[in-house]
């Protein structure tokens, strides 16, 4: 289709690569973070890194909701699924993610728990309507792209008067995560991670708009360019970032004009505001407790809140100490720095969430770079 394949054209990519090579200042280094795991995978899948000048370095960000979910919260979902009368409905992304003691939703299902995979959150509501004798819990995860759908299904469940439907809300917000990276000691004090600019999320921004990033650009003096998920989008966004950095500017620019406006999707924002409120604090894998970084269900919709209905508790757990996911999520390490990468930890039998998710950095390295990294070692 023109609006997908048009943005993957090889001749245009070669031309953009050459134009970029002319534009970079050879006397400086450019460290750009792609926040989204979707961008990470686009970059590897299409070999974008190989088209970039050597002084442009891409740092992989934490924009992978599966990767940043704290293990205790996943454990709580697994415990919930094991309750006899409960059906847990989840997006497919979460099923194979390892919890503590190498448990997962998929293994729980093999042991008899009723875990079902859904493509759309509305399927959970349909199941609840069809099976009134069971408790249907929707395991809601994701950044702002996914949150409005969850808000809609809660409103839909109320409209249908469903008393056996609830949501285990694990939604997270993008601006808080970006701010935590910029505030982290690795960036501010230790200088382990350098981030000169951000490639901003495309579909998150379709919902929230480009305005929420203006604060970072201004306050932290880092340019942000919102980019589409196709390879030409990413390359053009990199060129726009290089131009800003060369000129000493730090603004929010939008490469993904076909999907993103400054104000975003107002209707979706209103639904989210109706149903959800910010949590004072939420634990992220790799980033720790971040203030106002996650959403919970408002008390006016408390009957649909699985955390209240089932009195869910999260208990701290010990994670596999060898797994470098937390450092990889922060951009401090690369997947190939992890001793488990490609040996003990593979997509078939993952130790950490970054190897499972279709947006995880480890999965991207494993899928697209394994041969190359093996040679380099």
């Amino acid at each position, binding site marked *: 289709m023109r609006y997908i394949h048009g943005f993957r054209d090889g001749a245009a990519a070669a031309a953009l690569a050459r134009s970029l090579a002319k534009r970079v200042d050879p006397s400086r280094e450019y460290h750009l973070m792609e926040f989204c795991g979707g961008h990470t995978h686009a970059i590897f899948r299409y070999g974008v890194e190989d088209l970039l000048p050597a002084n442009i370095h891409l740092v992989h960000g934490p924009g992978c909701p599966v990767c940043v979910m704290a293990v205790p919260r996943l454990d709580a979902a697994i415990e919930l699924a094991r309750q006899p009368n409960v059906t847990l409905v989840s997006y497919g992304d979460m099923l194979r993610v390892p919890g503590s003691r190498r448990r997962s939703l998929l293994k729980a299902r093999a042991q008899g728990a009723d875990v079902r995979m859904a493509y759309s959150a509305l399927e959970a509501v349909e199941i609840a309507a069809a099976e009134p004798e069971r408790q249907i819990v929707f395991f809601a995860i994701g950044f702002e792209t996914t949150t409005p*759908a969850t808000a809609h299904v809660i409103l839909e469940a109320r409209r249908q008067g469903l008393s056996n439907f609830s949501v285990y809300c694990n939604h997270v917000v993008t601006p808080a995560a970006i701010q935590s990276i910029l505030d982290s000691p690795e960036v501010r004090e230790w200088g382990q991670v350098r981030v000169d600019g951000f490639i901003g999320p495309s579909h998150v921004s379709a919902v929230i708009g480009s305005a929420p990033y203006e604060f970072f650009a201004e306050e932290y003096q880092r340019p942000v360019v919102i980019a589409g998920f196709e390879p030409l989008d990413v390359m053009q966004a990199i060129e726009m970032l290089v131009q800003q950095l060369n000129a000493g500017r730090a603004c929010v620019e939008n490469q993904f004009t076909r999907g993103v406006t400054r104000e975003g999707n107002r209707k979706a924002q209103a639904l989210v505001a109706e149903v959800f409120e910010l949590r004072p604090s939420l634990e992220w894998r790799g980033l720790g407790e971040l203030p106002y970084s996650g959403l919970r269900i408002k008390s006016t919709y408390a009957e649909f809140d699985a955390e209240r209905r089932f009195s869910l508790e999260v208990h701290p757990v010990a994670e596999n100490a060898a797994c470098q996911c937390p450092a990889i999520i922060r951009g401090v390490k690369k997947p190939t720095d992890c001793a488990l990468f490609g040996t003990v930890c593979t997509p078939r039998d993952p130790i950490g969430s970054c190897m499972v998710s279709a947006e995880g950095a480890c999965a991207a390295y494993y899928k697209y770079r394994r041969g190359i990294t093996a040679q380099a070692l």
Partner: protein
Amino acid sequence: MCLAVPVRVAALLENQWIEIEVGGIHTRVSTALIDEVAVGDFVIVHAGFAIARLNIEEAERTLALFDEIAAHLRESSDALHPRLP
């Protein structure tokens, strides 16, 4: 997770549903999160919901820019860099 694809609206169904076609597969998605759409519009679909309408004018403008860049470099002869195919 945030992956989404642009698709063409094939038919309007009742109750805010639309029918779309992706690679020969017909399915339905909800338009509860966006304003009204018409058959032939393009929407960006994520996890069973249309989250935005694709702005065709802007998409065409971006594609035209890429074409222009590619054409420009094709014309400029440069001994170090062979002409693009």
